[in-house]
């Protein structure tokens, strides 16, 4: 059995690099130049947001929006975190930030677990109709969320979890399992079925095999699923605004309230600081786990 967690070995497509000629060196520089240009393209909005958040409001009103700050101030960040007004409360995005954590963490865990179990069943315990069920679940990924708002609201009301954090978790889990199931299923089909057979002979049952054998193997794909789900749930606005009430609104709603004030003076520096604060967790996840993300994608989720 191959070591499933091993990193992929790089095929050296470019071939053997021999003693470099001038042309080769130029080519190499060209390559780096192109990569740099694209890096700038990707970094530009972040740059604008960052510099704006470090400027004073005075400078923004008088200066260039996309110039470097003349004087760096962190006031906007403090304001955004704990002082900015979102309605009559002026506590910044802080309380909403924790709401988002309370929604995203269980949401990610539950949808990943469900996806893992579903993927495990579909990939390793094929029964008649399993593929149809899987296809139906997968199609659920493509339903536009605007469509489900109203009926969902009605059902949440009937279930008595309207406006609550469990309600929001529930919604995110429901519309997340399509993708998590896809990830895990595609990963688990690459695991030889002999492993399941060996464990069956060893006397382990359905859940035991999952728990003791498949789950420990799943790190790369769990990373993929967690990154994906965390991004989706954390960045969600539509469900957050529709299915929350006072006290359960996620950070995106607070951010929206700060950014989209209808009248009055716009504090762009605070807006941008709030935006970056709201994006920090997902950014962090990408930066820290990005490497494993690629690895996890390689490990199976994309291999057809």
């Amino acid at each position, binding site marked *: 059995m191959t070591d499933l967690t091993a990193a*992929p*070995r790089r*095929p050296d*497509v*470019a*071939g053997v*690099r021999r003693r470099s000629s001038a042309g080769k060196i130029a080519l190499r520089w060209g*390559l*780096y130049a192109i990569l740099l240009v*694209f*890096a700038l393209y*990707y*970094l*530009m*909005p*972040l740059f604008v*947001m960052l510099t704006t958040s470090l400027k004073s409001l005075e400078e923004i009103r008088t200066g260039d*929006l*996309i110039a470097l700050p003349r004087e760096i101030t962190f006031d906007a960040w403090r304001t955004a975190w704990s002082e900015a007004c979102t309605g009559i409360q002026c506590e910044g995005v802080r309380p909403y930030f924790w709401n988002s954590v309370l929604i995203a963490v269980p949401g990610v865990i539950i949808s990943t677990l*469900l996806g893992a179990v579903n993927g495990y069943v*579909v990939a390793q315990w094929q*029964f008649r109709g399993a593929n149809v*069920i899987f*296809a*139906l679940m997968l199609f*659920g*990924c*493509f*339903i*536009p969320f*605007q469509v489900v708002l*109203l*009926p*969902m609201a009605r059902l949440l009301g009937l279930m008595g979890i309207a406006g609550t954090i469990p309600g929001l978790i529930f919604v995110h889990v429901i519309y997340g399992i399509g*993708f998590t*199931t896809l990830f895990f299923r595609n990963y688990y*089909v690459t695991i030889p079925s002999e492993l399941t057979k060996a464990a069956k002979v060893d006397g382990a*049952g*359905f*859940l035991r095999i999952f728990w003791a054998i498949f789950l420990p193997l799943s790190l790369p794909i769990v990373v993929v699923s967690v990154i994906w789900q965390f991004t989706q749930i954390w960045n969600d606005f*539509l469900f957050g605004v529709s299915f929350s009430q006072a006290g359960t609104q996620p950070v*995106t709603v607070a951010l*929206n309230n700060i*950014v989209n004030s209808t009248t009055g003076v716009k504090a762009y520096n605070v*807006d*941008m600081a709030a*935006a970056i604060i*709201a*994006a920090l967790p*997902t*950014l962090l*996840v990408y930066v820290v786990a*990005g490497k494993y*993300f*690629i*690895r996890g*994608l390689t490990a199976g989720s*994309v*291999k*057809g």
Partner: protein
Amino acid sequence: MARWFETHLPKMVLAPSFIAVLIFVYGFIGWTAWVSLTRSRLLPKYEIEGFIQYDRLFDSPRWDTALNNLFIFGGLYIGISMVLGLILAILLDQNIRTEGAIRTVYLYPMALSMIVTGTAWKWILNPGLGIEAMVQGWGFPNFSFDWLVNPDMAIYAIVLAAIWQSSGFVMALFLAGLRSVDTEIIRAAQVDGIPTWRVYTAIIIPSMAPIFLSAFIVLAHLAIKSFDLVIALTGGGPGYATDLPATYMYAMAFSRGDIGQAASSAMIMMLVVFAIIVPYLYSELRAKND
């Protein structure tokens, strides 16, 4: 009994998710279909009135624009993201020393919500504030980059920002795909005298078909959900030049109190999605069964 339980356990484990999907996806689609046949306004009503909402929908020039934009946006966004993602992946595959850092830079936009970056993009693309002003400031007074404010070009500005968000992710997918191609095949091609670019075009890329499909599915999913992006960047403007079915539907349902109209537009939108996704799913699952 225990044995029955054991053999049916997998089905029972799958059942809750399946039932949930049946209700919360297919049930809701059914609900929407029903409502699309009524005269629902502010809140849903359930007396069937026939196809009036569809008649209204196709009489609306704004819907025409929205549907048109969906094809322009969807086609360009998916197409360019794939091509760009692939090119970047190939470039990054050339033993780049700082690969890890570059990869993260390319990938991070996926982490940000468009509500957040929409404002920044709005500035960057705004002729008076952003790139155009900057380049003109460098001494090229005739430089023009006014996509965002030009009704004919605004949809392409949206495409530009959308590509910004997801091409890095597609790059990651393709990079993973490139890395999983058998080393020996590449070596065989080298011995066979195939130049590097042909190795990519004739051998590696064709063998990555499953990854193209995965990328497609993710991009299609994101294209359908590009609602936030349009709202943040143009609000559907100038005029309604950048309206998409999702924003049309949202406007009808929530700011205009015309739920029947919203439901009918949602049904058409889902039909389009269905027409594209189902063949994919079919081929995907067929291949697995062989």
